[in-house]
């Protein structure tokens, strides 16, 4: 029974990792930009939610509705005025810029919010759980997984059912040709980063309720997001969800053997997937 419980908890954890990774996957899929500041942007979003919740006395779940548009604007401005300037054939400049951005965000938050450990307080729901037979499933982890599925479903709908999604895919495939067809790649990029920030805000909500955060905690959370994206296959959003779950379950199983193996097991699963399927589980296109 403990094994079933371990796997269930691992799947639930995978939901959180998938949320971390979805924004990253989106940005990478469309503009081949590795955003090293993604973890810090999630933490930034958590602080935005915290500020909204504190200033207006709102429940975090309501505050996120205000924080999401704010973060969309942040993403849009970031892409338009910073990242678009360095995007080009060379992948190194944008990488370095996001690295610098990570340092700037961390220290900016440290200046503004001090190093205090913060947490979003969601009330009694935090400790609530549902009994499924002998297994107790926490309501918050379950909500996290459901949200991850909803977010990824919504992003997929956006990608394959809307005009904007067509523009996304076209730009991703060939930005120059898409430009000839009247699409402005830079606009598309700005909107994509904005949407990625909305997803990051949702991730921040669940991260902030699950554990404490402080300005410097972002990068530690980023590595699982990267792994989830790679395991799932670049550009595939459902793959990202699968990747998150693979890492979550691997960590859970590793910990059940010995907690020393917990993090390592996630990394081993990552390496194994790369060895067997170097392009990830569900690669989207040949590029």
């Amino acid at each position: 029974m403990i094994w079933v419980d371990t796997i269930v908890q691992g799947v639930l954890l995978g939901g959180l990792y998938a949320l971390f990774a979805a924004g990253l996957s989106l940005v990478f899929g469309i503009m081949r930009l590795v955003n090293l500041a993604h973890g810090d942007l999630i933490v930034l979003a958590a602080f935005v939610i915290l500020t909204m919740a504190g200033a207006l006395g709102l429940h975090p779940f309501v505050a996120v509705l205000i924080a999401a548009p704010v973060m969309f604007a942040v993403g849009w401005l970031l892409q338009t005025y910073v990242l678009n300037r360095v995007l080009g054939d060379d992948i190194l400049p944008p990488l370095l810029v996001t690295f610098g951005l990570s340092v700037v965000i961390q220290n900016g938050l440290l200046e503004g919010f001090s190093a205090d450990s913060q947490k979003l307080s969601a009330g009694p729901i935090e400790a609530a759980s549902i009994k499924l037979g002998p297994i107790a499933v926490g309501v918050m982890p379950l909500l996290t997984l459901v949200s991850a599925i909803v977010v990824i479903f919504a992003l997929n709908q956006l990608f394959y059912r809307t005009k904007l999604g067509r523009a996304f895919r076209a730009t991703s495939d060939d930005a120059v040709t898409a430009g000839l067809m009247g699409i402005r790649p830079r606009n598309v990029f700005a909107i994509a980063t904005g949407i990625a920030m909305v997803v990051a805000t949702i991730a921040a909500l669940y991260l902030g309720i699950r554990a404490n955060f402080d300005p410097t905690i972002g990068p530690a959370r980023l590595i699982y997001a990267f792994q989830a994206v790679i395991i799932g296959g670049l550009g595939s959003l459902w793959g990202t969800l699968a990747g998150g779950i693979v890492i979550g379950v691997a960590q859970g199983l590793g910990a059940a053997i010995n907690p020393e193996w917990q993090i390592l097991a996630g990394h081993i699963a990552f390496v194994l997937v790369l060895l067997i399927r170097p392009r990830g589980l569900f690669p989207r296109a040949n590029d």
Partner: protein
Amino acid sequence: MLSRRKFMQTGAAIAASSVALPAFAAGSKIKIGYVSPQSGPLSAFAQADTYVIENFVKKAAEEGFDIEVIVKDSQSNPNRAAEVARELIVRDEVHLICVASTPETTNPVCTIAEAEEIPVISSVAPWQPWFIGQQGNPADPASWQPFDYVHHFFWGLEDNVGVFMNMWAQIDSNKNVGALWPNDGDGNAWASEVGMPPALAAAGYNLTDPGRFQNLTDDFSAQINAFKQNNCDIMVGIPIPPDFTTFWTQAKQQGYNPKMVSVAKALLFPESVAALGDLGHNLTCEVWWSPNHPYKSSLTGQSCADLAGEFQDYAKRQWTMPLGFVHALFEVALDAIKRASDPTDGDEMAELIGATKLDTAVGLIQWGRDNVPPFAQPNISKTPLVGGQWRRQDDGSFDLVIVENGLAPEIPLTGTLETLS
């Protein structure tokens, strides 16, 4: 342009002055370097620094000492701590260094200063990682050497283990203990043969230790399952705050309800406890300093309560434990400066600091006492440790109530221990 004549004159004047003047002219400036983690993950330890240093410089000036404190930030990084220590010694030419908070800060600074023969007063790191961590070969006790220039005051692992076990002795439990020890310096020390397991075995407790986990782990189901299976009434650990929050929330979700939770490190600061909300009520931790400690500052004559009160007015935030210790660092510094014939002489200062016998805001500080093993006596002065329990107030803030004082009976209890369930 400097003419030859002028050069000869100045040279002669300098030579003359160095002969004629006593080594230390009263009224000349004494430079103290101060290193602490003011930014980065450890910066919660440094919240009281500005207040303490401002106060100290003012007090020292009132007593006729011209003291400059040069503050450096270790950025919570041991390499950076070593770098700023070297800067203080070489560029700023400080005469004395005070250093506080966690072995990651104190050890690099002390190692550099010991090599450069600059006296250091150090605190806020349990003495084992401080003393043993600086040895050339930590694994071989026979090779351990005392230090000449660096002095440290704080408590040790044995005190923390003792305080926790004294608390558990007060309650009625099945004596099953679940341990959450991370794979870092603290966790490994607690889990080692000099840490908790032998003490638990001697007192008849059964230990469930699932193993060392990595810091910033997102899932603790394995540990929770192990604790539930072994019916652990008592839970102990030394995780970092985010990990404890994750663990404790998950434990509640998955129905693990111990009677007593004693956690070191994660519950030191009121903010991290407040972050837990209702779930923070009645968790216990070690207490090194509180406004209820019956001590007085030798610097300002303030009681601990007055000191904490003034800090709260100044900083507009709740008192924190490092306040008393950072204050005491400068008490010891000024005491040694007062006794010195030449406070700028490192050798004399190191000797005088070692001979300190001072009642401070954190209790008596005196090196060479027999409450630590002989090898560490010249460098370690132990301060008292008691046990506290966080109580949630109606307004959502938390009060730290002292519930155990077996190791330091002079510190009054302010409440009785309550169980969680």
